[in-house]
């Protein structure tokens, strides 16, 4: 009976997150401003002309992901930390199935990341003079990257929200898990910038999709444990 309502429950959690976020805008401000500040610092100090022509593909792809990753880190852990801080975690724990909570929070983080990417990436390309050949491949890569990063960070956020000193722990715990993803995403971005064909980004894309998929699958099994202990 309840299985049919899992989607509705997940959407209820997502809806609650969105409503609360639109009213407080804490995560949105943190992520947006952090992203903008680093972008401006990078663009002002480095700009389109300071990088040697032969270094551009490497450096521009890496810098983009450094900005995107650190901006996201400031906001993604909030989905669970704020529930513990506001003492709503226990209320939620007794009212909802773990899977609905995970799905709702995962989707919220995904939307947050998508908003961040949509805001920062075009600005970055404009300010840094980053000419991307394969716009479609880059969009695809960003989408898959957002799914994988959202899955990992939602799980890590759930784990650290139950420990003391949460915010610093989030960085410590998520960095080793996210590094392989970032390496693949940077490599893929470089490939997308240099070629219009999807085939160029395929190796990176496969890596990102399979790591993201594996993380999602394992999360479904692990999340109830993390959430209830």
């Amino acid at each position, binding site marked *: *009976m*309840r299985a049919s*309502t899992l989607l*509705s*429950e997940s959407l*209820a*959690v997502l*809806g*609650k997150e969105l*409503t*609360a976020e639109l*009213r*407080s805008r804490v995560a949105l401000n943190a992520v947006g401003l952090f992203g903008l500040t680093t972008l401006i610092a990078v663009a002002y100090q480095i700009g389109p002309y300071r990088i040697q022509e032969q270094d551009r593909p490497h450096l521009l792809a890496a810098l983009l992901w450094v900005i995107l990753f650190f901006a996201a880190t400031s906001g993604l852990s909030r989905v669970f930390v704020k529930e513990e801080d*506001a*003492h*709503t975690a*226990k*209320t*939620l*724990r*007794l*009212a*909802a199935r773990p899977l*609905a909570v995970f799905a709702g929070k995962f989707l919220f983080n995904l939307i947050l990341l998508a908003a961040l990417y949509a805001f920062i990436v075009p600005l970055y390309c404009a300010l840094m003079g980053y000419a991307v050949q394969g716009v479609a491949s880059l969009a695809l890569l960003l989408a898959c990257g957002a799914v994988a990063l959202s899955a990992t960070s939602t799980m890590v956020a759930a784990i650290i929200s139950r420990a003391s000193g949460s915010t610093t722990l989030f960085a410590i715990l998520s960095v080793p898990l996210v590094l392989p993803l970032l390496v693949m995403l940077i490599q893929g971005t470089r490939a997308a910038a240099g070629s219009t064909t999807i085939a160029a980004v395929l190796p990176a894309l496969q890596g990102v999709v399979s790591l993201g998929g594996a993380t999602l699958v394992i999360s479904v099994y692990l999340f*109830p444990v993390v959430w*209830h*202990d």
Partner: protein
Amino acid sequence: MSAVSVEFKGVSKRFGNRSVLAAVSGTLQRGRVLVVAGPNGAGKSTLLNILAGLLRPSRGEVVYRDGDAPLARTHWFEHLGMAAPDMAVYEELSALENLRFFARLRGLHLEDPTLQELLDGLGLPPREHTRTVGTYSSGMRQRVKLAQAILHEPPVLLLDEPSSNLDEAGHGVVADLVARFRELAAVAVATNDPREMTWADARIDLAL
């Protein structure tokens, strides 16, 4: 509403080297209010958390039965309503939005008038229903917390210091609520308030 009973045997809990509960046993069943009394730090909240399945006991066990059939731990929460000082509702949402959210999570289709009636019954004036909980006084928050706990008419109701932050009128509201649920559900109340001790059909006294 089905009759769910909760039996707990030899429940102990340690946090590190500190023993909080030592071998507590008892039963919750419909028609009887169990009062858990004792000074601060005696483990009243810990016991209620263990009964709710939020904490695992170090020793002993808790069994939920629906009729005669035991219920798996993962399904306890569906039969359970709980209000406690550390169980807040969402400050960014209004009372009504909070209740809509919790109703949806529990797969209930409750119309707004029903929810407003519930809030009215607990003494939250209608003009407050659509304001965000962040603007409420602590007594008004307590009423929303209680509404959240009984929203789905649970067969097991756990109330941890239900009258905290409430005035005289609020205390009366809780007394009515306990009287109503005595007939409907298995109720446990953790309290220090001598007036609330009189609700007890059974009583567990925890010592430090």
